[in-house]
Structures are given as C-alpha cells and as structure tokens.
C-alpha cells in the first residue's frame, strides 16, 4: 500500500479525486514559494505599522507584477485551502445531507472570495483609491 506519514493516500482510479490529489501537491509547491515570499515581504521586510491604503496603491499595486503575483497567490490559496477544508469536512461529516450542506456552504464561500479578491486586484485604480 502506498501511504505517507501525515499525508493523504493517493486516491486510485485516475479520476477527479486523483487529479485533486496531484493538484494539492502542485499548488502546495507553488504556495511554498508564493505564500512564504508574500509573508516575508509584507510582514518582515515592510512593517505593518508603515502600511496603509496609499502603500498598496502607490508602492505595491502600481506594478502589474505584484498584481499578477497576488492574484496567482489568491488562486493557489483558494484551491489549496478550500480543497483542504473539503478533505476535513468529508472526514468528519458522515451523514450525507450534513456533508452536502456543509460542502455547499464551503463552495459558496470560496466563490465569494474569488469574486471579492479578483474584483479588487483587477479594478483598484492606481495611484490612489481616494
């Protein structure tokens, strides 16, 4: 049997669940770079006390690179985070209707974050939102 200590066993069959298993690892690798870089830049290199709306509009999102970086990070984290929580829900919610209802709420929440995050990163005027 193929198994890993602390990781989820790979679903056999080559269907959608196997694809999700591979994508969790692929997005995980991307997040290892993107999320750690994001944290180091915005919590370590720049202090939160020096950050406000003008910092974002004039020093971060005035560059297409950082908008693309942040949107890619958002896409990776939405897939990885929501598929991860989905695994936990299916582990603990056994009654079919409870499971279906919880997963529906989860996917709706994911869709809302997709819309909010994409909207602000695509439409925020530069420079200055006010």
């Amino acid at each position, binding site marked *: 049997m*193929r*198994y*890993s*200590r*602390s*990781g989820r066993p*790979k679903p056999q069959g080559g269907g959608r669940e196997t694809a999700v298993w591979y994508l969790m*690892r692929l997005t*995980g*690798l991307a*997040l*290892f770079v993107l*999320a*750690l870089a994001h*944290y*180091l830049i915005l*919590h*370590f290199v720049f*202090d*939160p*006390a020096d*950050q*406000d*709306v003008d910092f*974002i*509009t004039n020093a971060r999102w005035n560059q297409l690179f950082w908008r693309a970086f942040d949107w890619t990070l*958002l896409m990776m*984290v939405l897939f990885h*985070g*929501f598929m*991860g*929580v989905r695994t*936990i829900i299916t582990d603990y919610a056994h009654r079919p209707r409870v499971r279906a209802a919880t997963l529906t709420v989860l996917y709706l*929440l994911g869709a809302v*974050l997709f819309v*909010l*995050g994409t*909207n*602000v*990163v695509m*439409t*925020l005027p530069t420079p200055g*939102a*006010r």
Partner: protein
Amino acid sequence: MLLRYRGGEGMIAWAFHRISGVAIWAFVLLHVVDIYLVGGDPELYDEVLKVYASFPGRIMEVLLGAALLYHALNGLRIIVMDFWPPLTRYHRALWYGCWAIFTAVGLPVAYEIMAPVYGWPEFFR
C-alpha cells in the same frame, strides 16, 4: 487525543498540519475581505491595519507565520515521501529536520516582527 493515542511523530505531524491548515484558511477569509476594503472602504482598511500593527496584532501575526512555516515545511516533507516512497522510512528524521529549519528561520523573523513593540534594536534593517 494527542496525548492518549500513541501514534508517535507521524500522527502529531498530521494533527499539526490540519490545525495549522485550518488556521491559515481562516486568516485567508479575513485577509481577502480586508484587502477588498482597500477599494471598498479605504478608511476602514487603515483602521484594520492599525489593529494588525498593535501588540496583540503582532502576536497573531507571529502565530500566523508559525502556522504558515510549519505547514509549508511539513507539506514539503509529505510531497517528498509521496513521490519518493522509500524515504517514508525516514519520516521521523525529516520531521525533526522541519523543526530545525522552523526554529532557525522562525525565531529571527518573530524577533524582528515583535521588535517595534519592545523597542528592541533592529538588527535586520
């Protein structure tokens, strides 16, 4: 559960991975909403940032960084064992390696994040 079930390092690694994952996910919910405020309600965003820069805010920031770093390192360990199954026999050594990197990287970063609150010298700037 962590104390009674004697699953050893692998089980604790798994439990920490889950707990840190859910914690990061919860922060992402908050963070996407607060970034949305940059366009939606800039004044409110500046208020939220002041909370993040406060003393309790920085404690939460360090805890978030700890969850992120553990999840990232242990996630890499899982990927290594998934794609090179023979290395699974060294899963304990890999886990202790994760903690070594976690400590070496995490402590200086935590020190630097907390520095402004205590007025400690800022070695890294």
